[in-house]
């Protein structure tokens, strides 16, 4: 009997180690580094400062984007690629931001990309030890797009502080998939990939909880503005968001509308994958 125990013990610990082992992950994930000339999906990586976005970025791309704790570390966005299943993903690491509504330079970079870069999926990395602070940005992103995955990072630190976070309840309340992670240890990276893949391919369609304004006067003002914005900037995504910002008196958005830079945002930040190359790839397969 004692021999049996000795045998079963190590087997379970090996199984538990699998999820974090690079050999196991290698089966589905191929890190492409900066080698990404063509891609099927664009994934934006957003989150408050110091939530481990760059750690997640490095885990997925195999790149060594600087990780460290100082303000404005990722001032411009870093890009990398990975292959998961048979899809090529471009991952864009955005500067840390508390909000999409404030206007410091790095927050503008993040805001413009999420709003007008039209990423296929936006991953919001949140700090499990500071959820209250982090959910502000998560809710703002969920206002703009349905295709969101929440990476509930730093679960190891939360545990160390005696915090228990109910990730399933959080997913239900937000109406979006929530993946518990400890990215520094590689925990949850596989689950995150799977969630990104499901949302990108449409296998999972999140239905985010939204605050309903239900104010007929506001709604009619928004509708009027949306018509004008769409006329002035054909093809601009998130015209409703722009309208709400204008009504709120956001000076940076007002300026972008006046001088026409609002229209350029979509063109510069959202290069579409070249369809010809894409078809060739499919033919080869």
């Amino acid at each position, binding site marked *: 009997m004692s021999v049996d125990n000795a045998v079963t013990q190590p087997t379970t610990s090996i199984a538990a180690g699998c999820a974090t082992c690079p050999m196991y992950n290698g089966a589905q994930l191929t890190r492409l580094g900066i080698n990404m000339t063509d891609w099927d999906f664009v994934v934006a990586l957003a989150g408050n400062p110091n939530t481990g976005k760059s750690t997640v970025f490095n885990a997925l791309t195999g790149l060594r984007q600087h990780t460290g704790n100082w303000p404005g570390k990722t001032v411009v966005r870093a890009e990398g690629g990975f292959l998961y299943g048979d899809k090529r993903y471009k991952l864009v690491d955005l500067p840390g931001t508390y909000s999409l509504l404030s206007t410091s330079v790095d927050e503008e970079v993040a805001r413009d990309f999420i709003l007008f870069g039209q990423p296929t999926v936006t991953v919001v990395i949140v700090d499990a030890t500071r959820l*209250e602070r982090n959910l502000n940005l998560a809710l703002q992103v969920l206002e703009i797009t349905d295709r969101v995955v929440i990476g509930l990072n730093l679960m190891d630190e939360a545990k160390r502080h005696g915090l228990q976070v109910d990730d399933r309840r959080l997913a239900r309340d937000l109406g979006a998939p929530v993946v518990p992670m400890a990215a520094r240890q590689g925990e949850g990276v596989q689950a995150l990939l799977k969630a990104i893949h499901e949302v990108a391919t449409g296998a999972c369609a999140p239905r985010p909880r939204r605050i309903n304004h239900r104010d007929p006067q506001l709604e009619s003002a928004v509708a009027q503005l949306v018509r004008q914005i769409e006329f002035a900037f054909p093809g601009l995504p998130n015209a409703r968001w722009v309208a709400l910002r204008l009504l709120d008196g956001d000076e940076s958005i007002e300026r972008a509308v006046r001088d026409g830079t609002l229209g350029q945002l979509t063109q510069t930040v959202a290069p579409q994958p070249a369809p010809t190359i894409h078809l060739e790839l499919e033919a080869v397969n």
Partner: protein
Amino acid sequence: MTITTLDQLPPGPQARVTAVQLTGAERRRMMDLGILPGAAIAVALENPLGDPTAYRVRGAVIALRREQAQHIQVEIERA
């Protein structure tokens, strides 16, 4: 309970924000940083030069200049 402005808050006691006397982008910025009525706040680090001061609010340390802090009304809860 004593009502004062954030720039007058001494190091040590825990306070609660009662009003943010700012408008527009400045008010928005404070709210995004988690500084809105009801938020618990305390001095985290004093500056030997007196300005800015770092405050602990909702699990993060945020530095504010005196001219910003004086627009935030707080209620001192306990020493």
